[in-house]
């Protein structure tokens, strides 16, 4: 069965520092890969997605992610974190022919001053 693992439940980063959130997936073929962000009490906002092609994808709010097939990973990065980035981040995978998304359990980002 397909699965997504986000090994870090919480991460605290100082404002202005760089950020990397980890995501690993389990699937036999190359899936579609997504990162969503959720602020408290809100729905999910799409940050970026990977379908094919260049393995480094750019998203909104200065985020980027890199797909590494050999490691089955799709880690999210940002060079300089802002206090407004504090939220819950979800990695998700989708599959050819289906539009069901499988989500990880999320990583809560805390930003310290």
């Amino acid at each position, binding site marked *: 069965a397909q699965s*997504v693992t986000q090994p870090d439940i919480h991460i605290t980063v100082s404002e202005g520092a760089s950020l990397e959130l980890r995501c690993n997936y389990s699937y036999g073929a190359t899936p*579609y890969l*997504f990162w*969503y962000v959720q602020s408290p*009490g*809100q*729905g*999910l*906002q*799409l940050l970026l*997605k990977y*379908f094919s092609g260049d393995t480094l994808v750019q998203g909104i709010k200065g985020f980027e992610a890199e797909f590494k097939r050999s490691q089955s990973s799709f880690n999210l990065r940002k060079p300089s974190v802002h206090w407004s980035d504090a939220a819950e981040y*979800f990695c*998700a995978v*989708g*599959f050819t022919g*289906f*539009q*069901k*998304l*499988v*989500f*990880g*359990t*999320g990583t809560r980002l805390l930003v310290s001053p």
Partner: protein
Amino acid sequence: DAGVTQSPTHLIKTRGQQVTLRCSPKSGHDTVSWYQQALGQGPQFIFQYYEEEERQRGNFPDRFSGHQFPNYSSELNVNALLLGDSALYLCASSLRSSGGETQYFGPGTRLLVL
């Protein structure tokens, strides 16, 4: 361009009752998916509707049912509510014919079952 909208925003019910949640997809989208997000968890896929038919279903009991209307809007119905049904219910829309699998989410309906 309106995004995905959901109603109501919050709902309180008691065990055994029935509830209906509503979703209007993003303009131009024809597919609606529903997800349940329990506290502290990632969203779990409930089912997906396209052309007014349920196309895929996750691991949820028959108490969870849905409908899609000709204007692509959708309803999620939950019967015989249990305490464990308390969660944020998210609707997502997408455009099936595009071949892309990008889903856009609404703000959710928070359901509390007492």
